[in-house]
């Protein structure tokens, strides 16, 4: 069994117009910049994919990664908890102009909805958002005298995530807080594509420290020295590069 993919272009080649794509990362930590840029490259070349629904905690920052994907006009809808950042101009301008749909979800509910999608739990109850605008239209139920909101699972066609070490069977470890949503998204997508900083043979990861078991991963592509969104933005980088 070998889940490695030779290059980034191949890694993102299955994503089609209108699909739902979960993208790992919390702010810049864990953002799979190279996978996102490969998707942008494809759009530059072919005009596709477009009309994507993207699931991420944020809405991008600056003009690279998720912000660049939005700037490229590829995202029709964003499902996120916090579309603010140091420089959220790309999303903000498009949103205020009515050019992108936003589904705002409390962060813990977003995480749990994704986990539920991966775990075969179609709905669950949470105290979060009870009595607020974000609970409008959702079923409410009382348990032991306290009120809870029913939330639905969230699934995706693709997940694009970044891991630290990955083996050829798709077992993954992550680096510090870059873990965040990635292990959940891996479970909730029909196709999980991972850029790993270090690719090893099966057996190269201690079975005790595997965070994402290979069953949740469909493809692994090695990106040895990945860019960090925060660093790119401090250098005012744009993607695609401004000539």
């Amino acid at each position, binding site marked *: *069994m070998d889940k490695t993919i030779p290059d980034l272009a191949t890694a993102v080649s299955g994503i089609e117009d209108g699909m739902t794509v979960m993208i790992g990362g919390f702010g810049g930590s864990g953002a799979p910049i190279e996978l996102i840029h490969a998707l942008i490259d494809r759009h530059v070349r072919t005009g596709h994919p477009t009309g994507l629904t993207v699931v991420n905690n944020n809405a991008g920052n600056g003009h690279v990664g998720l912000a660049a994907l939005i700037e490229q006009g590829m995202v029709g809808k964003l499902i996120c908890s916090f579309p603010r950042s140091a420089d959220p101009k790309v999303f903000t301008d498009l949103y205020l102009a009515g050019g992108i749909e936003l589904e705002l979800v409390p962060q813990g509910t977003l995480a749990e909805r994704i*986990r539920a*999608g*991966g*775990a*075969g*739990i179609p709905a669950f109850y949470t105290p979060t958002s009870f009595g607020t605008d974000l609970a409008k239209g959702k079923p409410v139920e009382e348990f032991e005298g306290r009120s809870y909101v029913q939330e639905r699972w969230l699934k995706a066609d693709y997940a694009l995530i970044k891991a630290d070490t990955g*083996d*050829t*069977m798709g*077992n993954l470890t992550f680096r510090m807080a870059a873990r965040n949503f990635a292990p959940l998204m891996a*479970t909730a997508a029909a196709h999980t594509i991972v850029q790993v900083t270090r690719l090893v*043979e*099966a*057996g190269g990861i201690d*079975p*005790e420290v*595997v965070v994402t*078991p*290979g*069953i*949740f991963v469909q493809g692994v592509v090695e990106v040895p020295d990945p860019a960090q969104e925060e660093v790119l933005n401090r250098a005012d980088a744009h993607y695609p590069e401004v000539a």
Partner: protein
Amino acid sequence: MATKLTPTQIAWRAAQDIEDGAYVNLGIGFPEMVARFQPPGREAIFHTENGILGFGEAPAPGEEDWDLINAGKKAVTLKPGTAFFHHADSFAMVRGGHLDVAILGAYEVAENGDLANWSTGPKGVPAVGGAMDLVHGAKRVAVITDHVTRDNRPKLVKTCSLPLTGVGCVTRVYSSLAVIDIENGRFVLREKLPALSLDELQSLTGADLVIPDAVADLVTPELT
């Protein structure tokens, strides 16, 4: 009547349908034997409810590590690429549809795919384990079983009389006499022992068999 297949031969037959790279859960007991017959060039990854993916065969006697066991509490071994995880993650794999195949034993299978394999009725101590999760989780749920009970009553029936494990969940039965698919609420015969007549097979089956034009011979190696 034709000599029926041994449990080992049934396990062998079931193993032939497991694709290379498939994630597979084998039920406790008899189904565990399926792992021994992976066709050459194919490698399945075995999942066990108690938190191991990609484990290997049993260790030599005396070499057991009792922290490294399968759901049947039998000792197993590590293989390159094994991963450990807790029970909630383990059943996220099951319930979330990540397993390609689950192969279970059966007391009864109904023609609509209902399975009864956890309780023989109100007497004794009931035990369910992970069976009810597996039947609604794996992409394909297959059963391996003797075609009839010890007292020769059909195990493939019109309606289960024993408490159900799951509703409409089984899609293929590997029995000691035949391979039968469940399609649109009917038993569809795919393979039967060459020496067994269709009438004989029907007489040992508790619901009508659909007989397609092509029914293959069920042939296995000599295995005891």
